[in-house]
């Protein structure tokens, strides 16, 4: 039996965009997507795709990528397919605009996973780089009653168990859990692979499955927002930097030491 793997992936505003391009609409309490910079698949979710592909490299596996949102850039969301994933399921509905509320998002994703018949392993990113919530995967695990291992940097399946190298404060630990299970991964997993030409060709031919809220069997009481955004603002920084000069760069380094000594900092 091939291992069935789901990867949960979110489309986000590119976090690498220049800081100057970051704007918010305070009245709408929303970040204004920069017009000339396309969205991306959340970085940690590309790590999650890579983790799934590494499993598929060594054993028979199928990979389904699932995402929820109000609208998608299809070429962006097809990237996991071009990297080697098999299926793409998009939960798309105007009512799904609620990304600050992890409870809501997790309910939708869990409903889709149930509808798809469940998976041996669900792999997620550790957090989405827009709202930095780091909650959805743990919520999906709770809703589906799965064990959950977070912050993985290596994920393997053997003997019906998932084995994860989990990042800790001082290094890492190896954690095991029986399948089915959910795992979140971090950038320490390493660079995601690049799409191959063949992968890109295959991805263009694949059509995503698109479901709206009517297709999902989610309990309405569980979709009430748990969190409300009251205000969104850009913090002000008022730090004045004193630039230490010198005859040359080395001298500036010496002057810096004297300055810090004078200020009793060293």
């Amino acid at each position, binding site marked *: 039996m091939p291992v069935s793997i789901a990867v949960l992936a979110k489309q986000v505003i590119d976090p690498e965009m220049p800081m100057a391009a970051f704007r918010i609409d305070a009245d709408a309490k929303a970040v204004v997507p920069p017009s000339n910079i396309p969205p991306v698949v959340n970085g940690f979710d590309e790590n999650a795709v890579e983790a799934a592909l590494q499993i598929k490299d060594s054993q028979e596996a199928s990979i389904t990528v699932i995402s929820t949102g109000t609208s998608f850039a299809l070429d962006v969301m097809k990237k996991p397919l071009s990297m080697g994933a098999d299926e793409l399921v998009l939960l798309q509905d105007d009512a799904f605009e609620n990304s600050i509320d*992890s*409870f809501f998002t997790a309910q939708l994703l869990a409903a889709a996973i149930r509808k798809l018949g469940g998976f041996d392993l669900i792999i997620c990113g550790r957090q989405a780089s827009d709202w*930095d919530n780091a909650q959805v995967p743990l919520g999906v695990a*709770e809703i589906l009653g799965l064990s959950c291992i977070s912050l993985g940097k290596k994920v393997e399946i053997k003997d019906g168990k998932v084995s994860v190298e989990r*990042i800790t404060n001082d*290094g890492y630990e190896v954690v095991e859990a029986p399948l089915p299970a959910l795992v979140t991964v971090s950038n320490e997993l390493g660079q995601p692979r690049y799409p191959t030409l063949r992968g890109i060709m295959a991805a263009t031919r694949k059509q995503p499955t698109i479901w709206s809220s009517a297709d999902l069997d989610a309990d309405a009481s569980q979709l009430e927002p748990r969190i409300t955004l009251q205000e969104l*603002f850009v913090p002000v920084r008022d730090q004045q930097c004193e630039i230490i000069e010198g005859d040359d760069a080395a001298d500036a380094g010496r002057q810096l030491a004297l300055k810090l000594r004078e200020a009793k900092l060293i």
Partner: protein
Amino acid sequence: MADESGVLVLGDSTGGELSSMSRELLTAGRKAADDLGEELAIGLLGATLDQPSQQAISYGADKVYAVTHPQLAQYQVDLYLAAMEALCRDVSPRIVLIGRTNEGRELAPRLAFRLGVGLAQDCLEISVDAGSKTLLANRPVYGGNAIAVVRCNYTPQIAAIRPKVYEPLEPDSSRQGQVVSFPVELDPSQARSQVVNVVEEAAEGVKLEDARVVVSGGRGLGGPEPFKDLETLANLLGGAVGASRAAVDSGWVPSSYQVGLTGKTITPEVYITVAISGASQHMAGCSGAKVIVAINKDAESNIFKEARYGVVGDWEQVVPAFTEAVRELTQS
């Protein structure tokens, strides 16, 4: 749950002492409880809790629930969660505060989901609106580029607090409080994941998160070797070495060196950055430093908007001369 009341901190102990995160949570909780005119309780999980319970009272708790069970001596996520859920259901607090430590990163969201409520994640500051008794939480989003003020719509209102943003209160050993034993029933078979091996990679010497001085290196260092120079400098200053994610991703140093949003939160007296651009996600882990010093060759780099002192120059020239001068100053 009709009569929720009070603030419940979920705390822990390390080496028989109340953990620093718990002390910080008590500061945040004390203020919230006073503003509500309600009680501040702390739930401590462990096997033996006498000393940390007394400490919790001196740091501001009115009541301590000593949640004891032999299985709680060591952290295991499923069992800790079961104990926390039992405590929350029994105590019925209005507000629950938990630390966004490595453990809290998995405990807090799962606890909130289990209780069917929302979680204000990774908060820098909390306050209560005394009239409506609602919790308002300021939390950085978009890597720290913006701050969201969020409200929890269900009780208990749960907030995970970022480490090192609240200072512990001055301990007062004359404070009075009540210690209540809260034994829990735990079924060891609930522990579904198992740690089978632990690998330590952190540097020897002063711990990054406790160091008075931290010297961090970034992508501009170009390779692993220059980190030896930073180590020499850090040793002279009695400090520790950190890094940006770019340096970690390049494999130059282990991930335990990473400072930032998804790395460590540090609050040294002096934070010296070398060839780091100062991306918001990096600053998220070090903006609590008293003084930031930047060495970077690009005068336009964001780090100069965050630093108190800066040198615009190539680190290959600046760092050796700076290190020499530090050696002379600190050893004479």
